[in-house]
């Protein structure tokens, strides 16, 4: 979708509601838990970690009150959470859990195992960094898991988080890949927003119960999974994974389109605003910083926005298509709320990889909002001026 500025504003003004939905005021974490419930997950292993904790608290309450027919288990660590998720998914259950920062880092080993056991687990990760110790909004944790083989979506709003979890199960179960839906700590996780919660039967129509394929682990049809794979077979598994992961971008667009037909809210791998042959600077964003940039666009008609909803696998085709209308002197600037110990952040790395040999623009990278620092509209404007000055390609904005 490429919206013009006026379309975006009009859409917001005219939004009256959606059929077969209830409007609720929900914090992002409760929207995530509501989504898991609506997806009728059967197994929830859990371990507390700020700022994710209220997701699993809410799920434990739903199970205790029999609002959700699932087995909920308080595990001994995130490593065990993901290992239990793996076991239940191997036996065919629809599994959900949530974690954050150190928890995701601790589970890293199991993330690889889940992806390459081809298990369609969906989780929410509430992004926070590692050391120096910090619990606030930052995407270093999930972006550091880019190579584990998990599909990654980043939600701009609580509504998008809820909607994306539902779509994530379709994608996960179609391709047998795990999906991580990421939301921002506190700015989303602990902030109340208007959320349209779909009715259960609407979700049931869109997402039927998980189908059993016959490859589930049980005591009746013996099978072995996970044994040592010798070199002559190993790459076959990788090749099959590769062919499936290459379908994620198209499937994301297809599922997002179908979701729109059922729920009235359409989604795609990316969203662009005001990307035309007159746009001078394109902001590349994920999560809630996107909304801040949207606000600044009204004051700066020379600015466009490329919001990445799907980040892994990187939606290369969508990005190239969207940016191909830009004038040759346009600049790209990525806003990085992640620090991966390299000169550049994750988003600009991915952008350069996607555009190489296809499109050639000036590329700027901005570290902004690390460890939860606020990124107000003024900071976005400062970035605009910095990019126009063209003094440095990697910018630390608001550095104290």
């Amino acid at each position: 979708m490429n919206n013009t500025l006026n379309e975006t504003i009009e859409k917001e003004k005219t939004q009256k509601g959606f059929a077969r939905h209830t409007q609720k005021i929900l914090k992002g974490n409760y929207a995530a838990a509501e989504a898991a419930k609506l997806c009728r997950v059967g197994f929830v292993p859990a371990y507390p970690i700020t700022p994710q904790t209220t997701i699993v608290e809410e799920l434990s309450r739903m199970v205790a009150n029999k609002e959700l027919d699932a087995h909920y288990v308080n595990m001994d660590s995130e490593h065990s959470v993901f290992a239990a998720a793996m076991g239940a998914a191997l036996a065919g259950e629809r599994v959900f859990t949530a974690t954050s920062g150190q928890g995701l880092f601790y589970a890293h080993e199991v993330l690889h195992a889940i992806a390459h056991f081809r298990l369609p687990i969906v989780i929410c990760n509430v992004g926070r960094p590692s050391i120096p110790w910090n619990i606030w909004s930052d995407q270093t944790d999930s972006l550091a898991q880019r190579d584990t083989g998990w599909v990654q979506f980043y939600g701009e709003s609580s509504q998008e988080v809820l909607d994306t979890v539902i779509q994530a199960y379709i994608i996960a179960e179609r391709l047998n890949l795990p999906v991580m839906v990421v939301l921002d700590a506190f700015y989303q996780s602990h902030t109340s927003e208007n959320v349209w919660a779909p009715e259960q039967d609407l979700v049931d129509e869109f997402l039927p119960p998980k189908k059993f394929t016959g490859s589930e682990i049980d005591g009746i049809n013996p099978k072995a999974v996970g044994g040592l794979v010798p070199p002559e077979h190993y790459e076959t598994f990788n090749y099959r994974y590769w062919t499936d992961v290459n379908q994620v971008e198209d499937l994301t667009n297809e599922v997002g389109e179908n979701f729109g037909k059922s729920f009235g809210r359409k989604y795609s791998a990316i969203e662009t605003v005001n990307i035309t042959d007159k746009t001078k600077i394109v902001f590349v964003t994920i999560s809630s910083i996107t909304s801040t940039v949207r606000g600044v666009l009204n004051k700066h008609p020379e600015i466009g926005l490329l919001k990445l909803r799907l980040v892994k696998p990187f939606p290369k085709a969508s990005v190239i298509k969207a940016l191909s209308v830009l004038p040759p002197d346009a600049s790209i600037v990525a806003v990085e709320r992640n620090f991966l110990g390299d000169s550049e952040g994750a988003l600009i790395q991915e952008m350069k990889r996607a555009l190489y040999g296809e499109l050639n623009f000036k590329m700027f990278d901005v570290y902004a909002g690390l460890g939860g620092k606020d990124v107000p509209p003024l900071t976005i404007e400062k970035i605009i001026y910095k990019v126009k000055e063209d003094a440095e390609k990697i910018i630390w904005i608001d550095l104290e």
Partner: protein
Amino acid sequence: MEPAFKFLIEEEKVFSGGLSCRGCGWALLVRHLSSILGENTVYVVPASCFSIIAGPYPLNELKGSVVHTVFAAAPATATGIRHALDKQGKRDTNVVVLAGDGGTFDIGFQSLSGAASRGENILYVCNNNGAYMNTGIQTSTATPYGAVTTTNPNPEYKKTWPKDLMGIVAAHNIPYAATCSLAFIEDYRMKIKRAKEIEGFRLLLIDGPCPPGHKTEPSQSIAITRLAVETKLFPLFEVEHLKYRINYFPKEKLPVEKCLKKQGRFKHLFNGSDNGRALKDIQEHVESYWNRLLKLEQLSHE
């Protein structure tokens, strides 16, 4: 005509061609275990010798399902499988962890404690051969005092006592935990049957002979593991909800040397370099542990 004797295993639940070393405990252990549990069983295997014995991809030695999982979290993987099967109404399927001592005493310890504390309906079987044998005989916290390994070479042999896993597991107040010896096969089979009947978290700790790791003759595996029980190096006992029961009282008072001398991993203890100090310490440790067991058993009757 009635046969002169009956085989203990009437129907094998493992295929031939298992990849264990000669004289390895795993082969015998799993044959008896699977013959009693039956085919409706899911085995969860963390990294261990048994990962290989059970068969690399695409093989399966067992007539049952096998899930090979990450080293540190077999009880957690088993938890997920158990809950999924329960949710699907498959409560009669056994979920069994088969782990070595590294996966139990060390890297999987937290996950084990978690599953035991939660009372997961899982049978946990640990083949304790006293070191990381699959990676080539490195020290674990189950390695006995006095043994050499490739990471505790002589003269820096292991000079700390092995972790008291039974004591720790029993302290979780689980419904059943027992030690088993492959030289006392009827006792072992009785304990498998007992463990199978009970619901909740159950653990069997088996003294696992390992000729390459213990530097023993494969043909002597059973004889040496019997000596471990006779010398009280490895007492046979059960614990049900903190109630102890000793299953075997050795008839003769045999010194630990009888068992240790047959294992190359202890041979430096016999060269006179420490005037028999280490052997004396081991003997004292064994007697003190046995006396403690007697007292725990006594307490259990009160």
